[in-house]
């Protein structure tokens, strides 16, 4: 028996060594290296993009981690978890079935933030925590990492997520341009409501997306412009689009959302472009935002052709320069022509964002809730389109341009829901003239009146429910007769010459009539008879500017 002791010991030792080999290569004994690349700033408006690994080929992540197994053994079920205190609780990001010695895994984090992040109005600094464990790992083995990042306010748009020091070209400056689609909100109930009102009250019906007729689509585009003009929307800038690669201060911009542009009645080029894109998209057209150095303007694509409008043509009385819808469209088309030329030459400063195309790539807008207060504000704005016959005074290089939209409600002065828009009748008004909407409420057909600073000349706009010019003039005569005025007139086609007699003397005038939807619009320009001759130059000029 003693002779067997040694060989049995050898076998036993062999078994021990085999056991030890399994013990030393146990699953728990491992080590990992982790290298994290993080996003410095996360835009709440784009939270749906950050949550979608398929969006833009996964370009927008919160972080990506390069995890390398530096141990000599294979690790099983390597689990990566993360959390963002206050937003996302511990969430399993990935489980890697096995990681060989030396193997590297790339793990990306696409965080799903709660929808409420879209209501975040201020920026904040946040922290993300990462934990990596594997089968058999002890508390000491587990890897814990954390990093800080910034969540901007809802409206802030970063043109690029590349650090300023790394900007090497315009492709870097426009690195985030696809995310502009996140700020285009066609499904926002407020934008939908606004669009419906444009379609109903400004355009009196619209079918561009159905007919695919460019003229109809252009009518819609200019209809949006008219809506902004009629609501006295003004251009106002904070920070604009970058103009050069050194323009670091403009690499981010705090945007008002389209609903805020509508209700705030002010916007700068990019904000107006986002508004147009939202309304166009809501109406079923393909909106495009054109970006050029220092500027942006909206348009659409139809049947393979691009169209654009200079939305900032609304200017503002304080800014002086204001374009009519036609001028804004012509300017937009001119800019577009230049754009296409530069774009085809490969100039990277000229780029466009096809909103629906990037939508299909997963760039979807934030969800916005309905808001009774904002709806009420839209109602007020829509009311301003129709109240007082929707006459708007705007300046134009030393003159002002009166934009008139017919009111076919038959003199309903309540306005909000009874007026309807139609083809406008415009004339240039010299700067400094005073304009009054509904100057005499007791005379509902008198829509607006403008008078020269010295009161020697005036313009009167009448909207009369009549079938022709003669009927309209007779109706005006009858109305004014009730107020002690007697009208004599002579018609020559659409032109009318006449005198109005009252206790204050004789007023001589010339007028033009235009058929409107369901009525006649009369624009009369005149002067006291003893001043008519001396003012005839200005009166003729004004009369000839009526179109």
């Amino acid at each position, binding site marked *: 028996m003693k*002779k*067997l002791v*040694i*060989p*049995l*010991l*050898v*076998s*036993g*030792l*062999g*078994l*021990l*060594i*085999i*056991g*030890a*080999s*399994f013990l*030393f*290569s146990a699953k728990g004994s491992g080590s990992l290296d982790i*290298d994290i*690349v993080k996003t410095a700033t996360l835009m709440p408006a784009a939270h749906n993009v950050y949550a979608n*690994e*398929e969006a833009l*080929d*996964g*370009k927008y*992540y919160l972080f*990506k981690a*390069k*995890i390398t197994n530096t141990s*000599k*053994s*294979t690790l*099983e*079920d390597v689990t990566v978890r993360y959390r963002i205190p206050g937003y996302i609780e511990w969430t399993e990001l990935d*489980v*890697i*079935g*096995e*990681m*060989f*010695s030396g*193997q*590297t*895994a*790339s*793990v*990306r984090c696409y965080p799903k933030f709660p929808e409420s992040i879209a209501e975040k109005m201020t920026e904040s600094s946040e922290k993300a925590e990462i934990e990596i464990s594997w089968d058999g790992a002890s508390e000491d083995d587990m890897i814990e990492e954390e990093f800080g990042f910034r969540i901007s306010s809802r409206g802030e748009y970063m043109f690029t997520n590349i650090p300023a020091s790394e900007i*090497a*070209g315009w*492709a*870097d400056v426009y*690195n985030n341009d696809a995310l502009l689609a996140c700020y285009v909100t066609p499904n926002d109930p407020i934008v939908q409501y606004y669009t419906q009102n444009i379609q109903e009250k400004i355009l009196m019906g619209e079918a561009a997306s159905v007919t695919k007729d460019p003229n109809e689509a252009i009518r819609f585009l200019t209809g949006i412009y008219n809506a902004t003009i009629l609501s006295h929307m003004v251009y106002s800038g904070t920070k604009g689009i970058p103009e050069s690669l050194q323009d670091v201060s403009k690499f981010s911009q705090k945007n008002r959302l389209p609903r805020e542009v509508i209700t705030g009645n002010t916007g700068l080029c990019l904000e107006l472009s986002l508004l147009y894109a939202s309304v166009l998209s809501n109406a079923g057209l393909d909106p495009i935002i054109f970006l050029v150095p220092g500027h942006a303007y909206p348009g659409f694509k139809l049947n393979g052709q691009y169209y654009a409008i200079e939305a900032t043509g609304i200017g503002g009385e304080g800014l002086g320069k204001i374009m009519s819808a036609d001028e804004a469209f012509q300017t937009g088309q001119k800019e577009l022509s230049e754009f296409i030329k530069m*774009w*085809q*030459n*490969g100039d*990277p400063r000229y780029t466009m964002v096809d909103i629906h195309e990037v939508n299909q790539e997963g760039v979807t807008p934030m969800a916005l809730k309905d808001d009774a207060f904002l709806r009420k504000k839209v109602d007020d704005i829509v009311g301003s389109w129709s109240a007082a016959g929707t006459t708007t005074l705007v300046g134009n290089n030393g003159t002002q341009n009166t934009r008139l939209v017919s009111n076919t409600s038959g003199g309903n002065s309540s306005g909000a829901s009874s007026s309807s828009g139609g083809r406008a009748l415009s004339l240039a008004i010299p700067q400094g003239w005073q304009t009054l909407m509904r100057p005499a409420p007791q005379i509902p057909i008198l829509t607006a009146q403008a008078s020269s600073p010295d009161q020697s000349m005036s313009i009167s706009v009448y909207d009369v429910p009549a079938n022709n010019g003669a009927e309209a003039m007779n109706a005006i005569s009858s109305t004014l007769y009730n107020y002690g005025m007697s009208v004599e007139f002579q018609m020559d086609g659409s032109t009318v010459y006449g005198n109005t007699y009252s206790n204050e003397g004789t007023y001589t005038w010339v007028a033009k009539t235009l058929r409107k939807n369901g009525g006649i619009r009369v624009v009369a320009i005149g002067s006291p008879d003893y001043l008519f001759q001396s003012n005839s130059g200005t009166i003729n000029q004004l009369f000839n500017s009526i179109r």
Partner: protein
Amino acid sequence: MKNYRNFITLLFVLFMGAVYGQQQMQQKIDMRIDSIGNAKIKLSMTMNAQQWQIWQGSLGNNPAALKREVERGMPGYFLDDFKLEKDEMNRSFELSLNAYGACNIDKRGTWIVETDQKNANLTKLTEHKYMLVSSPIESGGTIQQTYTIELPEVATNVKVDTDAYGKSIFKFKMKSPSGGFNLLRLSGLALFVIGGIWTGGKLVSKSKS
């Protein structure tokens, strides 16, 4: 492969405006995956005079911008070891780079390589090598890309499958390159066998005596 295709498309978008509708360009992309899931990618192509001039002006003479474009096109991966070799005489270039963690491994330890194409028309060249020819829509048909995807020699059970989005993927199994018996285990086994034979010998001799 999902993002490789995209970056290659993107690489040429920069001058597509000028060459659009002209002579079709041929690209060759080789992707070789090693035994721990990293990929070595080589992209090569030859251009005509006009294409070469435009490419030189945009990226060819600015390797840093080229690197940035590639990184922009493959945002999810960790890339390094970029090398650009140009053959000016023949108007061609070859770009090579490494992509770490190019394969996914699911919970069951199955290795996955994505193609980002629905019903990809894959041609099996060998047990571990496949070819795919495509013409990206983004290029308007002016770029024809020929991919070869080489899976590791140690890959087993290679299958072409579809993912949740209906896109073609490769699935395979791999064993750890450092797997099998280690030295300690081998020594223990040897001792166990020697001891067993020795014991057996002693028992046999004892029974004879």
